[in-house]
C-alpha cells in the first residue's frame, strides 16, 4: 500500500497550483472556486486560503454535489440510490471564471456531470479544472488545467485521497484491487 503523496507533498502541490492560478488568470478577479463533494470541497477551501495569502483577496468558494447528474444513476433496474448532498454556491457564477476542484481525475465522468451541474447555475465566462491526482484512463475527452500529481496507474488499482478535514490525515495512497 504505497503512499504516493504525504502531507508535505500535498501542501506543496496545492501551493504551486495556487501560484499557477494567479499567474494564468493574472490575479484572482472574476475567479470562484467550486469543490466537487466530498473531497474536492476541502481542497477548494485550502486553495482559497493560499490565494488569499498570495494576493490578499478572497475568492468565493462553493460546494457542488453531482449525484443527481451521474450518468450511471438509472443504469441498473434495481439498486440503492447514491446519497444526495446539498450543493452550496452562494454567489452568481454568471460571467465568472470557475475553478472546478476535485481530488482524483479518472474516467472523466464525474467532471462531465459537474460541468452539466454548474451550467444549470448560470453561464460562467470559463471553467478550469483542478485535480490533486490525475490517474489516467480517461473515457471522455476531458483534461485538467492544473494537476497536483500525474500518477500512472492500472485500472485494477485504486487511488485513495485522505484529507485532514474528513479523514484525520493528509495522504494519497495507491491500493491494489477495486476501482476508485
Amino acid at each position, binding site marked *: 500500500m504505497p503512499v504516493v503523496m504525504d502531507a508535505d507533498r500535498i501542501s506543496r502541490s496545492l501551493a504551486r497550483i495556487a501560484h499557477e492560478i494567479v499567474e494564468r488568470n493574472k490575479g484572482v478577479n472574476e475567479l470562484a472556486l467550486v469543490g466537487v*463533494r*466530498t473531497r474536492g*470541497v*476541502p481542497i477548494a*477551501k485550502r486553495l482559497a486560503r493560499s490565494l488569499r495569502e498570495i494576493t490578499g483577496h478572497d475568492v468565493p*468558494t462553493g*460546494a457542488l*454535489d453531482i*449525484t*443527481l*447528474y451521474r450518468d450511471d*444513476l*438509472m443504469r*441498473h*433496474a*434495481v*439498486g*440503492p*440510490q*447514491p*446519497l*444526495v*448532498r*446539498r*450543493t*452550496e454556491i452562494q454567489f452568481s457564477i454568471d460571467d465568472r471564471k470557475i475553478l472546478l476542484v476535485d481530488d482524483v481525475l479518472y474516467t472523466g465522468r464525474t467532471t462531465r456531470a459537474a460541468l*452539466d*451541474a454548474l451550467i*444549470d*447555475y*448560470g453561464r460562467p465566462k470559463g471553467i478550469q479544472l483542478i485535480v490533486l491526482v490525475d490517474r489516467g484512463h480517461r473515457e471522455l475527452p476531458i483534461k485538467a488545467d492544473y494537476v497536483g500529481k500525474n500518477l500512472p496507474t492500472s485500472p485494477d488499482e485504486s487511488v485513495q485521497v485522505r484529507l485532514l*478535514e*474528513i479523514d484525520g490525515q493528509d495522504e494519497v495512497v495507491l491500493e491494489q484491487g477495486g476501482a476508485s
Partner: protein
Amino acid sequence: MTTASSEIDQKPAVTALRHKDLLGITDLTPEEIALVLDTAEAMKEVGTRPIKKVPALRGKTVVNLFFEPSTRTRTSFEIAEKRLSADTLNIAIGTSSVVKGETLADTALNLEAMSPDMIVLRHSSSGACHLLSRICRSAIINAGDGMHEHPTQALLDAFTIRERKKQLAGLKVAIIGDLLHSRVLRSNIQLLTKMGAKVCVCGPPTLIPTDVLRFGVSATSVVEDAVAEADVVMLLRIQLERMEGAYFPSLREYFRVFGMTEERLRLAKSDVMIMHPGPMNRGVEIASEVADGPYSVILDQVANGVAVRMAVLYLLAGGAEHEDAA
C-alpha cells in the same frame, strides 16, 4: 464555510431506502425517515436555482392516479416529478374509465401494461395502495388512502418542523381537530413518536379514535391543555364530507370550543409553530388571524412538500435491494 465542512464529515446511519413502495410511515425506521429529510434538504436547494431541474429521473415515467380531489398534493407531486426530469401522466377520476365502472385493480393493471416506473395513488379507500402494491411491479407511492395514511404529508410536516427547531426529539406537538377521519394524523403520530417527539391529540370525544392511544400519544378534549407549552400546534380540517353521523352540534360551536384563536395560542411556547395540512376551514378549526399570523408556517409546508416528494421519488427509484434485477 465552516458549517459545510462539518456537514460533509457525517455519514448518515442509513444511505438508501430499501423499499419498493412508500405505503405508510409504519414501514419506515427512524434512520430512513432521517434519510428522506436529509435528502429533501438537498432537493430544496434545487428549487432555488435559476434552472430548477436535474436529470436524475430522466426516462422514468410516473403516473399520478388521483381518485379524490386534490390541488396541493397532486400539483406538488407533479412539480417534484418534473424537477427530477421524469415524464408525468395525470389521471383524474372524472376523465378516466372509472366512471364507466372499471375497478381500481383493472385500472392499475392496464396502466401497468404501459410500463410506468412509479404510480402515485390517492384513493378514498384505506388500503388501496396496499392492494396496488401487491399486483403492480411499479413502485407505489401513497398520496393519501382513505382514513389510513398520508406519508408524504407527515414527512413534509417533519421537514418543516426540523427546519425551524433543528430536531424533532423532545418537542411537544399538539394535533387538534378531526382526529377520527384524518390520515394525516395517523401518519404524523407515527412519524413524530418514532423521532422522539411528544404528541398530544385533541378533539371532541366523538372524534377521538379509540386506537390512537396505542401509538403512545396522550389525548384530551380540553384544547387549553393540548396547547399549553406546545412547540408545535397542528390543526386538522373538520372533514364534513367523511362525516355520516352527528359528531358535534355545529361548526360555530366547534370553533368556540376547539378553534385556534390568538388567545388560546398564548398558552403555547413563545416560538410556537402553527401548521395545517390544508385545505383550511377558516373560522372552524383555525381563526384567520392565526392562519395568517406570524407563527403560521402553513405556506412553508406547501413549499417544502415539493422538496420532500422529490426526495421520496428519488430514493424509491432505486427499488428494493433484495429484488431480482429485471
